[in-house]
Each structure stands twice: as structure tokens, then as C-alpha cells.
């Protein structure tokens, strides 16, 4: 194929150009900048959430997070739609299940759940929060699935769909709640802000954990399916 | 709102025709005829009002600063009346002609829409509205040209579109440019561009663009290429193209352009009218000479149309009141003359399968009434008094002499001779004894015969009544007078 080198030149040129542009752009920046951190920190302090990142994610920019949960659910559904049998999550994972992994899983998963809970709890004051907790929870779920534990009864049909949707629906309900109280979308009343944020955080942790697990379960190849082909 | 009716009624007729579908032939015929009659009555009532000095107008706001508007002035109504009345006549003919054809709903539906668009062109109150209807006319004609669906028809349709859309593009640029330059410019007798007359270069280019756009439909040489090809369409469509709506929309656009947009004075001052006149004169001679050599009957008529349309353009471009009035009168006169001829050609082709001049012998014996009608139209076209063609040519000639363009008079005389040259051989050939075995005097279907007789009679009536109020010639004089600052001598 004589054309090959020429074809490769385009990506190379594109990536080098982007690289040069970004370096040049970054070089032009002043050495210090505060961005929005001052306002955000002040705002977080006022509402009593010490971890500013958590405040940004769940309060100031909660709308982003709402849509992001939608992204996760959407991706899960999209992955489901690519299955030949989209009405069920994978039952048998072609995992690396073995005695060692099984034992490890038994040991680790409870720890991970505890860690996740801890992350959520401290999320409003120190590093941690819904995303991290949810991620750990999701990793735990995947570990369970890989080691052959995951054959939940809810993994197909209507129950599965409920499990997938309930997190987002609840979040939407919470987001709409302020509308009845005269606020805008996601405008938590000041007096109950901290508790509502915590509630959303717990909800999100479960939701992200469940979403990530089901994303994997929706995606993972069913061994039976693979054998059939 | 009444002023919209000449557009809306045919449009509605078209919609109903489509809705009725292919099977309900009687209902379709009834709806179309009723539509045509009601539209004609509306147009006539508008004419009466307009003669009385009451010009109705109405506009719908569309684009910012631009209104989509129509007005029922005498000038526009003349074209509108020609289109609407001849629509009814053509309908009767077409119902007979298309008796066994396929896709008749499509045919009659688009036919009605064509008339709606032609009426829109006629009554448009400004260049933009005119352009809009002009393009709709192009589009609605296309399905009629390609009606048979044969590869020949598709090719002719492609050619038609190529020209029509090219012309439309020129028109679009011209109209937009003009609006950007001068703002909204409603048609005004005597011209609407006095305030920007200093922009001579721009105005010349814009005139060129607009004239090219109208020139396509007016078959102004060298933009006439589509017209002979479009002959493949069914005969009623040819009549529509050549007599009733399409080409007339082109020359009518020229008339509006010279008389009511630029105005005769500005057109002459810019030199654009003279250029147009030269081009039109060339078209007259060219069309006539080429027509002489055509063996195919419909092609010969087509080239005759090329020549006759240039009569109108030339008369308009001379910028003298009588010539302009003659041009406008010729628009109506040519319509009735040429429609007679195309009806005849269609009858010959449909009833006797005669399409060539060489196949004509015996036809006059076989279909005496039809051929007599043809003869009337042919003589009228050649300008024999007291037929319709004479009246308009008289005006054109006097106007040419008066307007200081005696060369144009020469062109008119020469082309009259040429017209005799290409028409008379047809008549002579048909009178020769030939081999049509059926009994003499068997005419075509009466639904095709009577329209022919009617339009031929109109050629006579228009000529005889040329001096009376309400006749096309008088009407044209009245309508064109305001562009030249008042009443005619």
C-alpha cells in the first residue's frame, strides 16, 4: 500500500499541531490564578460543606451532576441495546473466577463497602464523596460479578429496569422538590441544605455504584452467549 | 383579500384535484371548470373595478421589511384575464385530449397551480412577489413538461429546469441586489428607482440580471433553447407554455421591468432598453427564419413563438407609449392566436396522428372547421387586417416610428413577411388532396373542437373591436398610459 505513509502523516500533524498550540497557550498564562475558587470556597463555607469539591459537584453545579447520572444511565441502556438479549444483564461472566479471587472477593468486598460508606460520610468535610464512594462501590460490584457471585434475581426484565432507573428518578424528584417551595431547579432551602446535600450524596453513591456495576454487567459478555456463537 | 382570489381559487382547485385522485374523472372535470369560471368572474369583476379607477391591493408581511403583496392594476389584470379565461378554454380542450391518459389528477392539479402562479406573476405588486410566483410557475410547469415520463420528456424537463432555474438565479440576485440598493421598490407606473438613479453601473448590471431572468421564459434569443424541446409535452401543456401562462410570464416581467420598475425614461437613459431592443429584434428575425425550415408542425409553431415573444419585448424596449401599448396588446392577441394553432396541432396529432408538415395533405378536407380556425389564427399572426395581430402590430409599428426607431418598423414588416412564409405553406399543404380515408368533415372530439373555434373567434373579435373600451388594444393603451405620464393621444 503506497499510500500508507501519507495517511499516517495527517494524524501525526494533527496531534503535533494540537500539542504545540496547547503548550503555547499554557505558556502564555500567568503563574497564579484563582479562577472561581474564592467564590466557591466562600459559598461552601456558608452552607457548611467543608469539602469544596463536594459542594461544587452537588450544590453549585448540581445540574451537571444530574445530567452526568443521566449519561451513566444512558450509556447502560445504550450498551443494553447492543446486546442480542437486551432484557437481561449478564448472568455468567467469562471472568477469571477461581478460589483465590473468590477468597479475595469475600475479604475485600465488605471492606470496600465500608470504605465507600466512609468516603460518603467524610465527603462533606474531607476528600471523598459520592463520586469516589460510588466508584469504589461500583468496583466492588464488578469484583463480585467477576468472581461469579453476581447472579442477582433483579438482573432481568422489569426489576432490572427499575433498579437502573430508580437512582436517576429519585435525583430528579429531589431536584424538582425546590420548585414546590418557590425555588428554582435544585435550589435547596438554606436551612436544610446540608442535610439535603448529604441525602443526595448517599443517593448518588448508590446510584453511581449501581450504574457502574450494571454498566459492566450490561457490557460483559455472557459466557453462554459467547459459546453460542 | 378579494385581490388574492385569482391566485387562491386556482390553487384551491389544484388541491381539490389532487385530493380527488385519479379515478373520479367527472368530479375532477366539474371542480376544474367551476374553478375556472369562478376565477374568471372574479378577474372580470376586478377589471371592472380597475377600469373605474379602484385598484385593490393587499400584502402579507413575510421577510423583514418586505411584504408579499398583490395589486389589481389594469396592466396585471390584462395578463391575469388572459391566463384565467384561457385556462377555462384549455380545460375543456384538455378534458377531451387527456381522455385516456394516465395520471390525470397530477396533470390537472399542476395545471391549476400553474394558473395560480401566473395570476400571481400578473398581480404581484413588487419584484420580490413577482419573483416568488415566477419561480413557483417554473416548478409547477416541470411536472407538466415531463408528464409522460418518457426519457425524451425527462430530458426536455431537465433542459427546461436548467434554463428556468438558471434564469431564476439571475432574477434572485437581481431582485435582492435591487432591494439592498433601493429598499422595497413596489411597481410604479413610470419607474420606481428615481431615488437611486445615480448608481448607473449597478442599475445596468441589475437590469441585465432581471432581463436575463425574464428572458428565459420570454424565450429571448439566446435563452430560448428550452422552448422547442418542451414540445414533447401534451398539447394542452404546449398551449399553456406558449400561449397562456409561462412564456407570457416572461414577457410580462419584461413589461413590468421596463415600464414600472426602471421606467421608460431611466431605461433609455441607461442604454439598457436599446440593448434589449437589439437583442429582441435579432430574436424576431432568428425565430422567423428558423421557423421557416421546421418540418415538425409543433416545432415550427415553437420558433414562431420565439419570434412573436420578441415582438413584445421589442415593443416594450422601444420605450415609446404606442409601442409599449402594442406590446401589451400583443401579449393578449398572441395568446389567442397561438393557442388556436397549438390546439389545432394537438387535434391533428391526436385524431389523425399528423405531426409533420409533409403529412398535412388532405387534412383540410377531413377537418374543415379546425383548419379554418387555424387559418384565421395564421392570418392574424401574419398581421392581416382586421384580425387581432394587425391591431397590435399597427400600434407597434406606429410606436416604433414615433419613438425614433424606424429600423424596428423594418423588423416588424420583415417578420410579418416571414410569418406569411412559414404559415401559408401549412395552409397550402393541408388543402392539397391527401390520403385520409375517413369521411370528409369528421372533426375531432367536440370537447376539442369547440375550444378551437372559440379562440379563433376571439382572434377576429379582438381585431374588430380594437378601438372599443374593454378590448385588449384599448385596455393596453389605458394600462400603459400612466407609465408615460398620462393619457395617450
Amino acid at each position: 500500500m503506497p499510500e500508507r505513509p501519507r495517511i499516517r502523516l495527517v494524524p501525526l500533524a494533527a496531534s503535533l499541531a494540537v500539542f504545540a498550540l496547547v503548550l503555547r497557550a499554557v505558556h502564555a498564562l500567568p503563574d497564579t490564578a484563582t479562577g472561581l475558587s474564592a467564590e466557591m470556597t466562600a459559598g461552601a463555607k456558608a452552607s457548611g460543606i467543608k469539602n469544596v469539591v463536594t459542594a461544587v459537584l452537588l450544590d453549585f453545579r448540581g445540574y451537571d451532576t444530574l445530567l452526568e447520572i443521566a449519561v451513566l444511565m444512558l450509556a447502560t441502556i445504550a450498551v443494553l441495546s447492543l446486546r442480542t438479549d437486551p432484557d437481561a444483564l449478564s448472568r455468567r461472566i467469562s471472568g477469571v473466577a477461581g478460589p483465590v479471587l473468590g477468597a479475595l472477593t469475600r475479604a475485600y468486598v465488605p471492606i470496600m463497602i465500608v470504605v465507600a460508606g466512609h468516603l460518603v460520610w467524610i465527603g462533606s468535610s474531607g476528600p471523598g464523596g459520592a463520586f469516589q464512594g460510588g466508584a469504589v462501590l461500583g468496583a466492588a460490584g464488578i469484583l463480585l460479578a467477576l468472581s461469579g457471585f453476581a447472579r442477582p434475581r433483579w438482573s432481568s426484565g422489569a426489576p432490572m429496569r427499575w433498579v437502573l432507573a430508580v437512582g436517576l428518578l429519585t435525583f430528579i424528584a429531589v431536584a424538582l422538590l425546590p420548585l414546590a417551595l418557590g425555588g428554582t431547579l435544585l435550589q435547596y432551602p438554606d436551612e436544610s441544605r446540608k442535610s439535603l446535600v448529604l441525602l443526595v450524596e448517599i443517593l448518588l453513591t448508590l446510584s453511581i455504584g449501581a450504574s457502574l456495576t450494571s454498566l459492566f454487567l450490561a457490557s460483559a459478555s455472557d459466557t453462554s452467549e459467547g459459546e453460542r456463537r | 383579500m378579494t385581490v388574492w382570489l385569482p391566485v387562491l381559487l386556482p390553487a384551491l382547485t389544484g388541491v381539490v384535484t389532487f385530493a380527488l385522485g385519479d379515478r373520479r374523472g367527472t368530479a375532477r372535470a366539474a371542480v376544474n371548470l367551476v374553478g375556472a369560471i369562478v376565477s374568471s368572474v372574479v378577474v372580470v369583476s376586478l377589471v371592472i373595478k380597475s377600469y373605474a379607477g379602484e385598484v385593490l391591493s393587499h400584502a402579507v408581511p413575510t421577510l423583514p421589511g418586505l411584504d408579499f403583496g398583490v395589486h389589481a392594476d389594469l396592466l396585471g389584470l390584462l395578463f391575469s384575464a388572459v391566463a384565467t379565461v384561457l385556462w377555462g378554454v384549455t380545460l375543456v380542450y384538455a378534458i377531451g385530449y387527456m381522455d385516456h391518459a394516465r395520471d390525470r389528477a397530477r396533470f390537472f392539479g399542476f395545471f391549476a397551480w400553474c394558473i395560480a402562479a401566473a395570476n400571481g406573476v400578473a398581480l404581484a405588486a413588487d419584484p420580490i412577489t413577482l419573483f416568488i410566483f415566477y419561480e413557483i410557475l417554473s416548478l409547477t410547469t416541470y411536472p407538466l413538461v415531463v408528464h409522460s415520463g418518457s426519457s425524451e420528456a425527462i430530458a426536455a424537463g431537465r433542459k427546461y429546469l436548467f434554463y428556468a432555474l438558471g434564469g431564476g438565479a439571475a432574477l434572485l440576485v437581481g431582485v435582492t441586489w435591487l432591494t439592498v440598493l433601493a429598499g422595497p421598490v413596489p411597481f410604479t407606473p413610470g419607474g420606481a428607482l428615481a431615488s437611486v438613479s445615480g448608481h448607473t453601473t449597478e442599475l445596468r448590471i441589475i437590469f441585465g440580471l432581471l432581463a436575463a431572468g425574464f428572458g428565459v421564459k420570454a424565450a429571448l434569443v439566446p435563452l430560448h433553447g428550452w422552448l422547442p424541446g418542451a414540445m414533447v409535452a401534451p398539447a394542452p401543456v404546449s398551449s399553456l407554455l406558449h400561449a397562456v401562462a409561462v412564456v407570457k410570464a416572461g414577457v410580462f416581467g419584461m413589461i413590468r421591468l421596463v415600464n414600472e420598475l426602471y421606467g421608460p425614461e431611466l431605461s433609455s437613459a441607461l442604454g439598457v432598453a436599446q440593448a434589449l431592443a437589439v437583442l429582441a429584434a435579432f430574436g424576431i428575425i432568428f425565430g422567423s427564419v428558423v421557423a421557416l425550415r421546421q418540418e415538425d408542425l409543433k416545432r415550427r409553431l415553437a420558433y414562431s413563438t420565439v419570434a412573436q415573444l420578441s415582438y413584445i419585448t421589442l415593443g416594450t424596449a422601444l420605450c415609446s407609449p404606442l409601442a409599449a401599448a402594442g406590446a401589451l396588446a400583443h401579449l393578449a392577441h398572441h395568446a389567442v392566436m397561438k393557442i388556436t394553432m397549438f390546439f389545432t396541432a394537438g387535434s391533428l396529432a391526436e385524431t389523425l396522428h399528423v405531426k409533420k408538415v409533409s403529412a398535412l395533405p388532405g387534412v383540410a378536407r377531413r377537418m374543415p372547421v379546425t383548419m379554418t380556425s387555424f387559418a384565421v389564427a395564421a392570418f392574424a399572426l401574419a398581421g392581416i387586417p382586421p384580425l387581432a395581430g394587425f391591431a397590435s402590430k399597427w400600434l407597434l409599428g406606429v410606436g416604433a416610428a414615433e419613438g425614433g426607431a424606424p429600423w424596428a418598423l423594418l423588423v416588424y414588416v420583415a417578420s410579418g413577411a416571414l410569418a406569411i412564409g412559414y404559415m401559408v405553406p401549412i395552409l397550402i399543404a393541408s388543402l392539397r388532396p391527401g390520403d385520409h380515408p375517413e369521411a370528409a368533415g369528421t372533426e375531432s372530439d367536440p370537447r376539442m373542437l369547440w375550444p378551437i373555434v372559440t379562440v379563433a373567434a376571439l382572434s377576429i373579435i379582438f381585431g374588430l373591436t380594437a378601438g372599443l373600451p374593454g378590448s385588449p388594444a384599448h385596455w393596453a393603451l389605458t394600462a400603459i398610459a400612466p407609465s408615460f405620464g398620462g393619457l395617450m393621444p
Partner: protein
Amino acid sequence: MTTYDVYVAGGAVLFALGTYGLLERSHLVHKVIAANFMGSGIFLVLIGLANRTPTPEPDPVPQAMVLTGIVVTVAMTALGLAIVKRYFSETGRTTLDADEKPGERR
């Protein structure tokens, strides 16, 4: 040169590398991995630049953006891999062929 310049420059390299990989590598899983590198590159740039605050705490907004970005990227990745797998099941291929005209099959 400050500490954070190193990470920002590294992020730029990573982004460029990912772009190159996404455009040039033909194995579909490689393309997905490359897209993830692009993402990581951006996250490095974001957080690196967030560290320009005078306080020891970096700007929280980019951190929140990166957290969002990580989750969105995993969603995209999952979809990409699911299509790769289905595509492989249907055609037995792991690459997109440029010379294959669309619609030729069927």
C-alpha cells in the same frame, strides 16, 4: 519551570498521543484506549492549571469537572467497547476498513 508545568506539559503530550492513537491506530480497542489517554491528558491540564492558586488548595472547579469527565469517559468507553464486541460478533473484524465502501454489504 514549576511543578505544575510538568504535569500540564505531560497532559498536552498525552492528549496529542491520544489524538494520534485515535486517528492512526486501527485496532478498535486501541482507539478506545487512545481516547481515554486524551481524556487523561485533559484532566492533567485541568488539574495542573487549577494548582496555580496562591493557596495550597487547588481550585475546586476543575476538580469537579475532572470527576464529571472521568464518569462521562467511562460511559463513552463502555459504549465503544460494546459496539466493538457486537461489531466483532457480526463481522469478525476488529478494525474499520477505510477502503470498504459503505453500503456495499447486505
